[in-house]
């Protein structure tokens, strides 16, 4: 029994203060973000479908020249007009999408895998390998991508295959650097140390512990990179050192249309618009993925 006095003191009683009523939230800003994301997703899906099966939408041959119907503005006959050689703009733009997306996906995958392998290994192993790898990364980053790509394409000649290789070489360092810093922080985490204590080989640790945790950042970076590569490819094609003719690429279409900027602006405008919409949706998707997958990731890349 308690040894303090148990005599009950005189209690006065009064009701508790009522809580204020709260209204449910309006969540207006979240609504806006969701609409953005859905739009970007929709655009991406449409583009991918166009790229895979352009024949479903366009019936005309994008390379078919018709000198009698050049420089026509958008009409019922040609929904997006014709260019200086009478080619149908709609089909050229759609086939251009296919080329650009194909090139971008290949280049991003190649650059990403190469960069991530180097980065993760350098981050985890450290030492001499890391030092050398980072110097090479510095070199690639020391040269603006456009200039490096220009010189490389100028050296090996323009072809689709060369283009993809060149775009990858001008781009992998970004992946290497980011994955390296992820690997560095992961290296000291407890679950990795436990693995080492258990005797797992270094390759095994890299593949089964480090890599899966880096995947999230990698996906975000890769999605954002698609936009960057599409822009880079378009720039090269514009300068004549990208996708070789007669295959249509948005960049080369814009270059063709340059002299008709005043008279037939749609030759530049339509592919330009497509370019912007594509890159825009890739960027929005990348941002949404970043918010979803790794909300604490650094925002500098």
């Amino acid at each position, binding site marked *: 029994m308690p040894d303090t006095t148990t005599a009950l003191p005189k209690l006065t009683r009064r009701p508790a203060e009522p809580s204020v009523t709260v209204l449910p939230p309006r969540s207006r800003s979240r609504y806006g973000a969701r609409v953005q994301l859905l739009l970007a997703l929709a655009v991406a899906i449409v583009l991918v479908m166009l790229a895979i099966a352009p024949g479903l939408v366009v019936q005309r041959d994008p390379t078919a020249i018709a000198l009698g119907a050049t420089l026509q503005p958008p009409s019922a006959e040609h929904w997006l007009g014709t260019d200086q050689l009478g080619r149908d703009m709609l089909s050229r733009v759609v086939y251009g999408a296919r080329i650009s997306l194909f090139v971008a996906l290949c280049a991003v995958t190649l650059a990403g895998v190469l960069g991530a392998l180097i980065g993760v290994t350098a981050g985890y192993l450290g030492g001499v390998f890391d030092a050398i790898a980072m110097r090479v990364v510095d070199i690639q980053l020391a040269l*603006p991508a456009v200039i490096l790509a220009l*010189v490389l394409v100028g050296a090996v000649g323009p072809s689709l295959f060369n283009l993809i290789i060149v775009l990858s070489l001008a781009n992998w360092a970004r992946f290497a650097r980011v994955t390296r810093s992820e690997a560095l922080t992961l290296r000291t985490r407890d679950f990795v140390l436990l693995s080492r204590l258990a005797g797992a080989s270094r390759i095994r640790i890299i593949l089964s512990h480090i890599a899966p945790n880096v995947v999230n950042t990698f996906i975000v970076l890769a999605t954002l990179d698609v936009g960057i590569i599409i822009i880079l490819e378009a720039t090269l094609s514009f300068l*004549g050192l990208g996708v070789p003719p007669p295959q249509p690429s948005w960049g080369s279409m814009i270059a063709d249309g340059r002299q008709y900027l005043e008279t037939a602006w749609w030759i530049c405008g339509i592919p330009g618009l497509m370019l912007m919409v594509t890159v825009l949706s890739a960027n929005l998707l990348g941002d949404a993925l970043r918010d979803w997958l790794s909300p604490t990731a650094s925002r500098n890349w």
Partner: protein
Amino acid sequence: MISYILKRMGQSLVTVLLVTLIIFVIVRLIGDPTHLMLPPEATEADRDLLRQQMGLDRPVLIQYLSYLGALLMGDMGISYRFARPALEIVLGALGPTLLLASSALVLGVAIGVPLGVVASIRRDGWVDQFAKVFAVVGQAAPPFLFSLLFIRLFAIQLGWLPTSGYGSWKNLLLPALALGWYSAAGIMRLTRSSMSDVLDSEYIKLARIKGVPERVILFRHALRNALLPVITFISMQFGVLMGGAVSVEFIFAWPGVGRLIIDSISNLDYTTVQAAVAVGALIFAAVNLAVDIVYAYVDPRIRYA
């Protein structure tokens, strides 16, 4: 701090050297310049003789070493196209490019930083919405597209500014804007997020607790901390701007290094290409170094480490 500067200088030098090596190798693949230098009716034997005179028949490593030696003495070879020292040609084109790139950077900072600051103070306000659209559009298109858009709009339709050329501020405005929009977008986004993080920090809370006026908190306390990552970002932007300058110079007929590189590649003038890229890498490394030094000075944690 001195040791930090020296270490950084050493790193930059190594990087630039390696860059020259790589460019040297790549450019060798461009092609045989003797086609350009001799009249079409020259025979293969003539070409061989010229190659021998130019030293092109020696092993690649020897060629590189002698190139390096000449480089250290400021000799970057003779341009095959202009028959003048390549370095001279590159330096001549350097001025316009630096002017363009720095104008674009200045515009980027002048637009991006204030926009980012205001957007972070009134998050989700109308300035913030506008800034988001501005940034998103700016990062969705390459500079060459903006160049054409501006030409069409301001030069052709409205007739306010010339379509190309070099000489007055009117010639500079459109290229600088087209080139700078992308940078302004990135700078704005970074400023906004950096400023937001700083405004939520404990030391800003303490400044408010102290009773420091809000204006002083924003512009003296918060901004200084928020701009630190922006400084580093700006040095990265310089490389992006130099790359973008290539297509912008091409469109506006701006007599800069970018246009020079394009012309030299199509003309197989590889000495000029080499010289241009080497000079570019040097400048880029110098800018990075300068920015790193500024950053080390501003952040006392590095200054006194």
